[in-house]
């Protein structure tokens, strides 16, 4: 029988919260709840208020851009262990992309207003959270730049074997 576990336990286990001290785990958990999205459902929509940070626990979510007359363009997929959403940290606090659940998605859903208020009140906590978000953003920026490089392209004709 599956044991019902407290949200603090799930928060503590998530890679985003790795090595956070117990006080920080408690602050984070105080803003968090469990949430689940069926496969195919929309988790967020572009330009809507970004009111949540999701710590993904299970499944795959796709960041998408709608294009008139075409299928949505998938920018990136995110999986268990990753976070979804940093628009809540940057004014005007609106989602930059659509987010769709590719599979069933289970996530720790952190209320953004609550988290921002705690970051403002406790700057050590805020610094830690911003630092972790910045690391995620840096990794994603780097990955996006690599895709601009066209990593898997063969060498140009002039430089390759005959």
């Amino acid at each position, binding site marked *: 029988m599956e044991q019902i576990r407290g949200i603090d336990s799930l928060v503590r286990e998530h890679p985003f919260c790795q090595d956070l001290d117990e006080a920080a785990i408690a602050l984070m958990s105080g803003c968090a709840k469990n949430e689940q999205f069926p496969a195919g459902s929309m988790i967020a929509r572009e330009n809507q208020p970004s009111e949540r940070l999701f710590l993904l626990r299970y499944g795959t979510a796709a960041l998408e851009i709608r294009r008139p007359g075409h299928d949505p363009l998938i920018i990136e997929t995110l999986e268990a262990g990753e976070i979804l959403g940093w628009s809540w940290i940057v004014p005007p606090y609106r989602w930059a992309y659509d987010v769709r659940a590719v599979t069933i998605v289970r996530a720790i859903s952190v209320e953004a207003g609550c988290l921002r208020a705690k970051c403002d009140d406790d700057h050590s906590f805020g610094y830690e959270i911003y630092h972790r978000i910045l690391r995620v953003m840096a990794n994603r920026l780097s990955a996006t730049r690599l895709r601009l490089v066209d990593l*898997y392209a063969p060498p140009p004709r002039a430089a390759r074997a005959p």
Partner: protein
Amino acid sequence: MDDLSSLIDPAATPAGDDPMRPRPFRIARVRKDLADTFTLYLTALDGAPFAFRPGQFNMLYVFGVGEVPISISGDPADPAVLVHTTRAVGTVTEAMGRLKAGDVIGVRGPFGSPWPIEAAHGQDVVFVAGGVGLAPLRPAILAVARHRERFANALLLYGSRTPEDLLYRREMPVWRSRHDIASHVTVDRATGRWTGRVGVVTKLIRSGGFDHRHAVAYVCGPEVMMRYAVQALDAVGVTADRVYVSMERNMKCGIGLCGHCQLGPHFVCRDGPVYRFDRLGPLFDIWEL
């Protein structure tokens, strides 16, 4: 020519063979893999088996057109059939792509250093491939599959531009189901009904799935992809002395004489193409090379 014979792999080639003389092979079968990529299945006209080690390459000669270095992508345990997967990107490979079953092609080799898969015995083995870079890794994957009990976790991390650019799509599920070699695949751009990952291959490295303290990685793809893959491996704790890469240069003679493939102090055709990264790493930072 006896001196030249000593330069090629004695374990793989019958003694006394002239490494500069192509052996004629008949094309038994041609398989179109992708829009610009095909696989040739070759058998020697003289019937002699063609032994090789994973990671080695041959010089393939399209008569009247030219010769080109192509990694071997077949099963090292099956020396009766020589397999090459090739992308048509130049005059010779485009001509090669127009050949049919029954045509004859010249083969020199095998040349170069192999993937040292024994370095991963008892450890996690991680293959990192980009685009057609999966083809030179395939013999190593098959060798691991054949001796699967000698390794801990086995993992293929594979990135390509689109789902249509993925090689060996039918084989990957077999590697997983029969040999417990998991495949994690990602594409830069999702098309059609693709429901898999979208993102760069380096992200798969960060996602883990292996014990970084006890893992050996084999990386193959375009050089820029390998550069960032090695950085990502280092970031998760797989140090350069446990990372092997396969370098691509303009190989001509195959035996380290002509100098076309020189990379700093190395002749890639003879000293490579497979290098342990800590022995090559500084050269990656010299952009003039």
